[in-house]
């Protein structure tokens, strides 16, 4: 019963094993970064007397079951929607001196279109058979129009784009009291161009 010294285990292959595991995890890892278009739904309560919106302050976007776009009773390609929405929101048609006058708008100031960005409402109506792809594309373009205008105003007032400010806050690049100040600025810009996107009840069938 001589006690033999146990031979040392060769650890040379440990690296290989570790590599194998490493490669397995490398392959299976999906670092998910979900991003999307955020939206606040209107609460489900009956509004007693809904505010009357003037026809000229309303921008009607209709999508039919074939994913065709009808904007203010005219056929339109998706490419042109963003500019059309910007023109509508930024019109500022109220005459100078009236309480609704918009002093930061740079639009055409046509009396036919919206009075003030704070009054302007974009209404989207879908068909139930509209594809989700088209729906998101339309929403994306409309949000892009708002972002464009907010960026412009934010750049003018604070020298910093709205979308960049928002991203900086979301990623926590700014801390403490500065974050509050920036948050305040965000809200001020939002005040200038409030997101007023309404969604009408979709049509029941493909009509």
């Amino acid at each position, binding site marked *: 019963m001589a006690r033999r010294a146990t031979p040392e285990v060769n*650890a040379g292959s*440990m*690296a290989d094993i*570790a*590599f194998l*595991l*490493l490669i397995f*995890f*490398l392959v*299976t*890892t*999906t*670092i*998910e*970064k*979900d*991003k*999307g*278009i*955020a*939206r*606040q*739904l*209107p*609460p*489900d309560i009956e509004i007693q007397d809904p505010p009357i919106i003037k026809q000229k302050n309303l921008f009607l976007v209709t999508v039919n079951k074939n994913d065709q776009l009808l904007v203010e009773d005219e056929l339109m390609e*998706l*490419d042109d929607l963003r500019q059309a929405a910007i023109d509508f929101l930024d019109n500022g048609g109220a005459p100078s001196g009236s309480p609704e006058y918009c002093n930061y708008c740079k639009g055409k100031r046509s009396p036919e279109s919206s009075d003030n960005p704070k009054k302007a409402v974009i209404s989207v109506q*879908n*068909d*139930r*058979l*509209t*594809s*989700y*792809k*088209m*729906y*998101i*594309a339309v*929403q*994306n373009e409309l*949000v*892009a129009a708002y*972002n464009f205008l907010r960026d412009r105003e934010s750049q003018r007032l604070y020298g910093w784009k709205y979308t960049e400010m*928002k991203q900086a806050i*979301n*990623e926590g690049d700014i801390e403490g009291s500065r974050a509050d100040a920036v948050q305040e600025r965000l809200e001020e810009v939002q005040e200038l161009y409030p997101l007023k996107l309404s969604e009408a009840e*979709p049509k029941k069938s493909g009509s």
Partner: protein
Amino acid sequence: MSKFKKKKSGDLPAISTASLPDIVFMLLFFFMVVTVLRDSNLMVQQKLPKGDQVEKLKKDRSIFIYAGKPGSGYEKYGTEAKIQIGDKFTDVSNIKFALEELRRKLRPELQDKVMVALKVDEDTNTGLVTDVKQELRDLNLLKIIYITTPGNQLDQK
């Protein structure tokens, strides 16, 4: 003088690879930690629409709703678009229960800041999404986010 004479360099000494396992293990642990094994098995097709005006999703306070046609392996459920919450298909009328169940799993302090993430296949009809949204309004879960993939729909044309 000979003191500064360069030593005649012989063979380069072999680089020690003894620390290689340590490095590899470090990487291994990193990937083991960040790997999230998907907790719900996707049963629907998910080709998300493209969007570029996006915001980041806060994962700790979100509930996912998937919708789309049944994916591969689930063809027996037909070709109509379906809603999946958690691990199973759900009917529009059952959304409330399923969501309530999921909401209870979140951290208590975040339960009233819930955000509902809608992951919907791009070929789905908007009607289904509208139904889901109506249910969410009934439940008073008003913050939603349509998950998209990076890109822009316009570029495809």
